[in-house]
């Protein structure tokens, strides 16, 4: 794992080092040419001064005067400038102390470079045909280079000394700069798994905010999923345990009751409850099987009318006087897919409709609009609009729950519809007189 701090540290140190080196090189080149210029000017001035001191009539000028004319010794450097005065006919008239005996330059005016006694020199020469002298003032190029080098070392040495300090400061500043990130990590680490409170993004720097926002969005999603899971668990607990509580209570009533009428009533309530629980268990098993099953590719089709006729024929006796009507046109509506799954879907819609039917109500099965599928229209109370999206959740039982419902019927229908690749559309009838449940086949 790379450390952001270490990475930033190396980048910063490398970048700063590079800038320092470039600056050093630049200063080196710049100072060197500047120094050359200054020293050359000095050579020229010194040569002019010596020349002016030379008197044609009092030659040779004293060496002392010559020495005095040259600049005083620079601290740390041996006498830099050397001076020679030659007669035009080639005799050395005079020279400063420390100046070599050999001629410093060719017999040309102006600047020239020459190696004398194995040492390179920079020389300025003035020829004076009137005074009949040639004045040469020069300095050692080696010394010039030493001067430039000393200058650069003088600049770089403190920088090198400061480098560790710079590194230390950079490291510490990075630590400080990255503190919001670390504190965010610490906050997240310190939380327990249940804690889905959003991070306070307002306190975080702009760079970390997208991360915090993304985390908060994730927290929201996880929390929503968890809430959904909790709701389903709560519904399941309620739907599974309530009938058991009813059974147990009625059984205890039957045992405690002295009155035979009370006891008989409790026993028949137990039978009703057992029937309902049986249905619940059956639905649970169907649901589990449906979920475990893969999608079967199936080429066969089934006439909706025939399937519905079978469902009605095998359904338990109708309560009260509910009527069922199957549109004969359904014989011509063909439903593709496994027969068993269609039976499950249709039977559960059918039972659901019947359970919610008022006395004398009519459940009508007919073709969906355009003949694309099949639909049931009942005359029950319908489903409140805000519950329409929830009723296919397992164990969800809305406001109009029936006594015999399990909260699983429409869940089974929805899963079966998904398996069959058809769309389940639940809607209240326009005139609020019942529910309309349609299976819409996909367009070919």
């Amino acid at each position, binding site marked *: 794992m790379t450390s952001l701090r270490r990475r930033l540290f190396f980048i910063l140190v490398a970048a700063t080092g590079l800038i320092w080196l470039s600056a050093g090189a630049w200063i080196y080149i710049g100072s060197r040419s500047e120094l050359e210029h200054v020293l050359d000017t000095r050579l020229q001035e010194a040569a002019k001064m010596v020349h002016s001191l030379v008197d044609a009539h009092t030659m040779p000028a004293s060496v002392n005067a010559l020495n005095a004319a040259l600049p005083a010794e620079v601290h740390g450097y041996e006498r830099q400038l050397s001076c020679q005065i030659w007669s035009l006919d080639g005799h050395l008239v005079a020279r400063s102390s420390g100046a070599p005996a050999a001629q410093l330059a060719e017999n040309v005016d102006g600047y020239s470079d020459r190696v004398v006694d194995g040492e390179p020199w920079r020389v300025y020469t003035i020829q004076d045909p009137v005074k009949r002298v040639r004045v040469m003032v020069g300095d050692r190029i080696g010394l010039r280079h030493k001067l430039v080098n000393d200058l650069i070392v003088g600049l770089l040495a403190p920088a090198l000394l400061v480098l560790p300090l710079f590194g230390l400061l950079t490291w510490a500043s990075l630590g400080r700069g990255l503190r919001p990130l670390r504190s965010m990590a610490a906050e997240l680490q310190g939380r327990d798994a249940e804690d889905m409170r959003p991070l306070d993004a307002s306190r975080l720097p702009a760079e970390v905010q997208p991360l915090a926002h993304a985390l908060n969005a994730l927290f929201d999603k996880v929390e929503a999923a968890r809430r959904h899971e909790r709701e389903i668990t*709560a*519904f399941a*607990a*309620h*739907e*599974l*345990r*309530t*009938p*058991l*509580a*009813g*059974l*147990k*209570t*009625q059984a*205890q*009533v039957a045992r*405690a*009751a002295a009155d035979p009428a*009370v006891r008989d*009533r*409790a026993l028949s*309530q137990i039978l*009703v*409850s057992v029937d*309902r629980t049986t249905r619940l268990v059956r639905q649970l098993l169907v649901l589990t099987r449906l979920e475990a099953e893969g999608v079967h590719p199936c080429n066969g089709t089934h006439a909706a009318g025939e399937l519905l006729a079978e469902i009605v024929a095998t359904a338990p006796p109708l309560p009260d006087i509910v009527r069922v009507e199957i549109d004969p046109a359904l014989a011509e509506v063909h439903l593709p897919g496994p027969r068993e799954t269609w039976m499950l879907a249709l039977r559960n819609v059918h039972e659901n409709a019947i359970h919610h039917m008022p006395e004398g109500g009519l459940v009508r099965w007919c073709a969906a609009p355009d003949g694309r599928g099949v639909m049931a229209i009942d005359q029950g109370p319908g489903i409140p609009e805000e519950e329409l999206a929830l009723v296919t959740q397992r164990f969800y*039982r*809305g*406001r*109009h*729950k029936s*006594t015999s419902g399990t909260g699983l019927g429409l869940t089974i229908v929805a899963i079966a519809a998904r398996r069959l690749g058809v769309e389940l559309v639940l809607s209240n009838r326009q005139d609020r007189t019942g529910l309309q449940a349609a299976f819409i086949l996909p367009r070919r």
Partner: protein
Amino acid sequence: MRVLVVEDDPILSDGLKVGLALGLVTVDCVATCADARAALASAQFDAIVLDLMLPDGSGLDVLREMRRAGDHTPVLLLTAQDETPDRIRGLDSGADDYIGKPFDLDELAARVRAAARRHAGRAAPLLQTGSISLDPSTLSVTVAGEPISLSRREFSVLAALMERPGTIRSRGEIEERLYGWQEEVDSNAVEVHIHNLRNKIGRAAIETVRGLGYRMGSAP
């Protein structure tokens, strides 16, 4: 004792009504939050058995509304979710007790009795006035140590009077305690029960306060 049961499962609701009635408790049953609110507004109950998951909302909401409105009637929550956090949430919302489904009918009845007793400010399970003592859990009455046999209505009337011995109970109050909504009440039913009671436990045991009602006599 009169108890309101708020439970939407008809079989459980019926079982509670019949089962609690075996312990001489008058039970009214409703199935929704809305009906529960209406019942609470129209009658006084000694305790409420409240299911949490109701078709039109959560029983907890009803409970919170009650407490906010200053209604201190003991509430026993009845729910399928009985994990510790659920219990804590329920109790902290103002419930007096919490029982998970499925439960034991006798335990539920005992808890209802205990909640009602605490609410009335009594710790002792036995009701005692002079030499008369009444045990709500076993439905037995003794006078000076001698067991007395009472009908269930007579027992209920006596229990109502003995719960607050010094207070006067009006005829309406006693009727409300004795009869649920669906029951027909004879106009002189309470007088008849009082008359019978006096024959069994002694004439002076119950005092008539003219124009106001009845209370336990100071001299047994």
